[in-house]
């Protein structure tokens, strides 16, 4: 074996690893060899006779070596709100979290409803050389919910899906036409499911907590109703629709029934919705103000069940950086959102440590599953594929301390929480872009 490699240029050997590939079900001790930007080979028997001379070796010390994470829901804030986050700061946060591909929402300023913005982001991300950045195009011009954006042209320039970001497409006729039009190519639409007239001026989940705190509540039905409506529209049009960050048990049930009927529907959730509940709001803690709001314990448990049953296809970080001025406000005035790139893996592994999911099933939700929903060439160990990898210790305990995170904004809903599972090294296109404690 050692003589198989005639030249040693551009080769890097990752030895003594626990190879994990959720796409193929591989979970075995072994090694991986990268050649330049791609995976040359991997497997339990690779380097059985030793690593060829001259090949640099990275000893994984028995830790997990898996495909880099694919995060399908990230707000980078550039262009337009660089004081909250930039492609550089999000890229650093992503690599610290083991994320090698991320897809950013179009709610930038200007919005990604024009090819020039897609190209600007692609160029900036390429120059930075951190995590790979893909972006969504807007469904409607200026995210205003009225006229369709240039969906076809945006797709040609690289947009991997279409969404109005944190806004729902409220007008049923506009949504119907968007689904119909996008199905001609065919392209994926992503909906933030919330009926705004029902959510009203609500700032947290409607319930006892909101009543005690004197905060106006958003009923869970605001999400469920929008999902039920859109399922009807998918049925009508034959479009492909993905629901972002589902947060209620009933949403999962409704989506499960739609999937059983064979509709092209997928969905994701985010770590706060399976790891936290509305109690986190506590004494008006604005880091826990998210959209959708943190729900009841029963809903949290139902989301975990949705992940176990496979109805929820993907976990996305829903990374939404907000600067201090946007969060250090009375609760009802504070901005929604929490950062999540750096805690995505650790909080997801919580499902494994709690006995809810097996390690490969948990990894699937943050690697190959989002890649497959979006049609991205990522998320799996494959010869010839890009060497986008993460090495992590699944058991290492650490405490999330917002101030030490690499994200420019520090608004983590998991601040001060102990978590288990730490990224040790992140590799993008064969280059180490993050190394813990380096």
């Amino acid at each position, binding site marked *: 074996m050692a003589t198989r490699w005639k030249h040693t240029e551009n080769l890097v050997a990752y030895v003594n690893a626990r190879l994990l590939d959720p796409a193929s079900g591989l979970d075995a001790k072994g090694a991986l060899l990268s050649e330049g930007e791609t995976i040359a080979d991997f497997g339990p028997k690779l380097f059985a006779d030793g690593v060829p001379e001259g090949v640099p070796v990275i000893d994984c010390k028995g830790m997990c070596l898996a495909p880099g994470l694919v995060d399908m829901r990230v707000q980078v804030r550039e262009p337009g709100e660089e004081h909250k986050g930039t492609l550089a700061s999000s890229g650093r946060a992503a690599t610290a979290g083991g994320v090698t591909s991320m897809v950013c929402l179009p709610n930038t300023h200007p919005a990604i409803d024009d090819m020039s913005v897609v190209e600007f982001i692609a160029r900036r991300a390429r120059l930075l050389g951190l995590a790979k950045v893909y972006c969504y195009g807007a469904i409607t011009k200026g995210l205003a919910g009225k006229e369709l954006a240039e969906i076809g042209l945006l797709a040609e320039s690289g947009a991997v899906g279409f969404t109005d970001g944190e806004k729902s497409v409220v007008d049923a006729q506009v949504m119907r036409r968007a689904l119909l039009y996008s199905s001609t190519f065919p392209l994926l639409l992503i909906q933030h499911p919330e009926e705004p007239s029902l959510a009203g001026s609500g700032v947290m989940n409607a319930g*006892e907590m*909101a009543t005690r705190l*004197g905060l106006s*509540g958003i009923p869970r039905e605001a999400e469920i109703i929008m999902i039920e409506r859109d399922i009807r529209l998918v049925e009508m049009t034959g479009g492909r629709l993905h629901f972002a960050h589902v947060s209620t048990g009933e949403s999962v049930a409704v989506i499960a029934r739609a999937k059983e009927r064979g509709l092209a529907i997928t969905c994701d959730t985010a770590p706060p919705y399976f790891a936290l509940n509305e109690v986190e709001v506590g004494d008006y803690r604005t880091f826990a103000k998210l959209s959708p709001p943190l729900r009841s314990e029963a809903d949290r448990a139902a989301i975990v069940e949705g992940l176990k049953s496979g109805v929820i296809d993907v976990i996305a970080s829903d990374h939404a950086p907000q600067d201090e*001025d946007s969060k250090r406000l*009375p609760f009802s005035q504070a901005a929604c959102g929490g950062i999540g790139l750096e805690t995505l893996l650790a909080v997801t592994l919580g499902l494994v440590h709690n006995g809810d999911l097996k390690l490969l099933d948990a990894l699937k939700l943050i690697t190959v599953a989002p890649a497959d929903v979006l049609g991205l060439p990522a998320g799996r160990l494959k010869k010839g594929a890009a060497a986008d990898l993460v090495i992590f210790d699944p058991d290492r305990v650490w405490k999330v301390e917002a101030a030490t995170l690499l994200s420019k904004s520090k608004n983590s809903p998991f601040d001060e929480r102990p978590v288990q599972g730490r990224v040790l090294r992140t590799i993008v296109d064969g280059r180490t872009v993050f190394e813990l404690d380096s």
Partner: protein
Amino acid sequence: MSNPHINALFPHRHLLAIEGLSSQEITLLLDIAEGYVEQNRQADKKKSLLRGRTIINLFFEASTRTRTSFELAGKRLGGDVINMTVATSSVKKGETLIDTAMTLNAMHPDVLIVRHQDSGAVKLLSEKVNCAVINAGDGTHAHPTQALLDALTIRRRKGKLAGLKVAICGDILHSRVARSNIELLTTMGAEVRLVAPKTLIPTAVERMGAKVFHSMKDGIADCDIVMMLRLQTERMQGGFFPSVREYFHFFGLDYEKLAAAKPDALIMHPGPMNRGVEIDSLVADDYGRSVIREQVEMGVAVRMACLDLLTRNLPNSDLKNL
């Protein structure tokens, strides 16, 4: 009178809500307020307990009666009281809140009395200052001194709080007064009933220990106290009921509905009243049963008691001189 143990009896730095106060602490506050009721009825109403202390009334939301009540309370205890009414634009007010807190803090006030239109805003501010903070009403969350003055009024008339049946009627959804009263009255062992149309009842409010009714006659049946609330139309977005006329017909307090309560039931209202909307003028002005004006009187005494107790816990307090 000097009381070196008072800190242990009321060990709170701020008064932000009723939640967190024990029945003993509430009783202590009401007992001290009783003494101030008598003082306020004298010709010489002034004491020097707060001499040298600076009290700032910081009102982000207009309220003449609460502000005046706090102002009188501070002045009658000999403190220097300054009123600040902060007009705010809807977008920038959060920055103004923290900035204002920082600025005021630099001037070394001893007590800040704060009213704000957003729930939780007073707590946020209390975390940024070194002085004592009294919540004079935040959004739809809490109005602790109103609940305390209601309790004092009831206790003086009925001699107790425990075991009484109290109906709180009207716009519960938007009422911080209702939330604080539910907390206080249930802590003190009273039975609390809430009466309103379903659109004005907050979600899961029965978990706070109150019973919910949608008929005035059923709700106030056999009650000792009927507490009416103002319809907060300024907080309402969209229609919560079809018309004022219909609202009064079903939920306005008149003699016919009042007949269901105990014959000696007291009528209360935190004011200002919408006459002919939530309460009939004849009932409101029935001085045999309506204690609405007495509530205003008790307000000053209760606020004096709050200032008294909280300033004893300030770090620069000299207990020996009390």
